């Protein structure tokens, strides 16, 4: 009788070279970005508060490209306040002296644009990563509470560090590539899915001044739709390159779902475009200026456009009830069945980043963007106050209601221009994100044929009728 030795099962995280390489890379990249941008924050903050009204003019001044004149012509950046004496140890002066010593003198004008673009993209990258981390945690807590359980509680106080530890866990996993898979395509697929999710943030308006939107492209909403359509290729590639029948089926279904629900989404988005007369995101928000009745959720045709957009964007970002492509009980988790480790993490990250983008876009198109008329301030304040006061039961009674009262006061007092517009935009996007989490916790998954039938026979006719109604209304009223 031979005694077979048991196979060695690793307990906990297996610390091997690959783990430390990946952890080192992650910390190095994040640490590098953080170290590079963290000192910039006080410098920029000081510069913005003291002298200038935008990052562009501050960077221009930093590089010595300010002209002390009244005219701000193309290419000549005007400074915020002219003619002020420059103190001796200003960072700008120091930098110009260093550049002069090195022999560079004044960098070319175009450098200012590039530095501002790099700063803007770093800010957006930080925002996306941090917001996705928070959203995943809040999602698990919210769904937990709705299902009469507590959600993550162990990792950190009230489970706050859960997402971080999940990221470390994904890093620690072995990065497998199936033997017969196409290695290049297998590695490329998560990248193709993740990058458009980041790129859309370039046109998302976070607030009302021009400094709050990275680039106000004149084709804003077309750019959003176009970037969302690149994701389909990544999913098909993931399913194909896995060399796995279930992955392929899942990818085909996912592609069919995404392509079908793109149509009503795009058609309905044209309603606000017709009303605003422009494709740019800022123009669409500016056209909703006059009060709650001007918002495009009510204005030509009440609620139809917003609901169709919400449903089709739930389907676009694979959220329950439309999460057939990635459900564990269907086709063994669909197109990402062969993915493990950080590649899977990229798919995950892309899905949540996409869902948050969609909330921003819906808030901009239908809910009046950063505008907060008094009715809306009251409604938002009351909702926030009541939800904090009635639901946050872990806090003692007085603290809870004090927080609720302060939430109401903040909402009623916050202006809707300047930094206040950032608050209102975030509030609306977060409210919509909570709504999608609520829908996620409530509805069962639809079957694939129900899915396709709903898109082609339900949403597309409704969106065509909506578009015709908006067009007719706009033609009659000559907007």
């Amino acid at each position: 009788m031979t005694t077979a030795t048991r196979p060695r099962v690793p307990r906990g995280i297996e610390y091997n070279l690959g783990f430390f390489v990946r952890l080192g890379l992650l910390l190095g990249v994040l640490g590098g970005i953080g170290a590079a941008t963290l000192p910039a924050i006080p410098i920029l903050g000081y510069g913005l508060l003291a002298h200038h009204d935008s990052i562009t003019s501050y960077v221009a001044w930093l590089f010595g490209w300010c002209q002390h004149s009244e005219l701000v012509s193309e290419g000549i950046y005007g400074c915020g306040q002219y003619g002020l004496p420059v103190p001796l140890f200003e960072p700008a002066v120091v930098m110009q002296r260093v550049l002069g010593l090195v022999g560079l003198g004044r960098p070319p004008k175009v450098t200012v644009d590039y530095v501002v673009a790099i700063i803007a993209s770093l800010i957006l990258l930080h925002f996306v990563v941090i917001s996705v981390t928070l959203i995943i945690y809040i999602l698990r807590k919210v769904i937990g509470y709705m299902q009469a359980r507590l959600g993550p509680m162990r990792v950190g106080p009230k489970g706050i560090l859960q997402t971080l530890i999940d990221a470390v866990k994904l890093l620690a996993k072995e990065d497998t590539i199936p033997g017969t898979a196409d290695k290049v395509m297998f590695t490329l697929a998560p990248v193709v899915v993740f990058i458009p999710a980041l790129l859309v943030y370039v046109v998302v308006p976070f607030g009302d001044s021009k400094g709050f939107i990275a680039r106000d492209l004149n084709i804003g909403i077309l750019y959003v739709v176009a970037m969302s359509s690149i994701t389909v290729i990544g999913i098909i590639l993931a399913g194909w390159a896995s060399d796995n029948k279930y992955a392929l089926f899942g990818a085909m279904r996912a592609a069919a779902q995404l392509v079908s629900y793109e149509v009503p989404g795009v058609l309905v988005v044209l309603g606000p475009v017709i009303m605003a007369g422009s494709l740019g995101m800022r123009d669409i928000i500016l056209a909703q200026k006059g009060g709650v009745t001007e918002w495009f959720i009510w204005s030509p045709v009440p609620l139809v456009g917003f609901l169709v957009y919400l449903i089709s964007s739930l389907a676009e970002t694979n959220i329950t009830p439309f999460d057939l492509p990635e459900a564990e009980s269907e086709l063994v988790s669909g197109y990402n069945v062969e993915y493990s480790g950080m590649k899977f993490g990229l798919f995950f990250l892309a899905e949540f980043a996409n869902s948050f983008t969609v909330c921003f876009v819906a808030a901009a198109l239908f809910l009046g963007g950063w505008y907060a008329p008094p009715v809306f301030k009251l409604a938002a304040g009351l909702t926030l106050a009541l939800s904090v006061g009635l639901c946050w039961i872990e806090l003692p009674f007085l603290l809870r209601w004090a927080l609720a009262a302060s939430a109401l006061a903040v909402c009623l007092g916050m202006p809707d221009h300047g930094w206040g517009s950032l608050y209102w935009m975030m509030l609306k996007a977060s409210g919509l994100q909570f709504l999608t989490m609520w829908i996620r916790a409530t509805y069962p998954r639809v079957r694939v044929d129900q899915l396709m039938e709903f898109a082609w026979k339900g949403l597309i006719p409704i969106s065509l009728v909506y578009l015709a109604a908006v067009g007719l209304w706009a033609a009659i009223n000559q907007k």
Partner: protein
Amino acid sequence: MMEALAFYATAALILISALGVVLCRNLVHSAMSLALSFLGVAVIYILLHAFFLFGVQVLIYVGAITVLIMFGIMLTRDVEGNLVQQTNRQHRMAAASALATFIALTYIAFQSHFNVTNATPGDSVVGIGVAFISRYVVPFEVASLVLLVALVGAIVIARDKEVD
């Protein structure tokens, strides 16, 4: 100078990925190169100040036609596999004629004199919209008919005949 750098980089991207489309043995790699060349053409549209066409190119070519081609590749898998030769009998003649065409076209392009201007174009979104409604409304309507016919025709042609 930056525009020249952008143009040359994008042109290199387009031509290299086009060569990838033409020369790759694996059809899926070809399709991905095709998507990359479509993206390159979209960047060329940005350099030409055609912003609306950039959006349309990415949305339709990269987002829809590439998906269509990938579905087509997956539904028509060749029984012989990936490593079969991808060129047919006439590839040498094709190469010669393509080269001759290229030389002829560049010669004609350099010999012709066009009234070139460098003025900044207007807003193409508004311009295209106005043109489609005012001067080119018939092609617009005919294009919608073409799409309807293509939609119905593709479904009819590709339908499984065992369905009663």
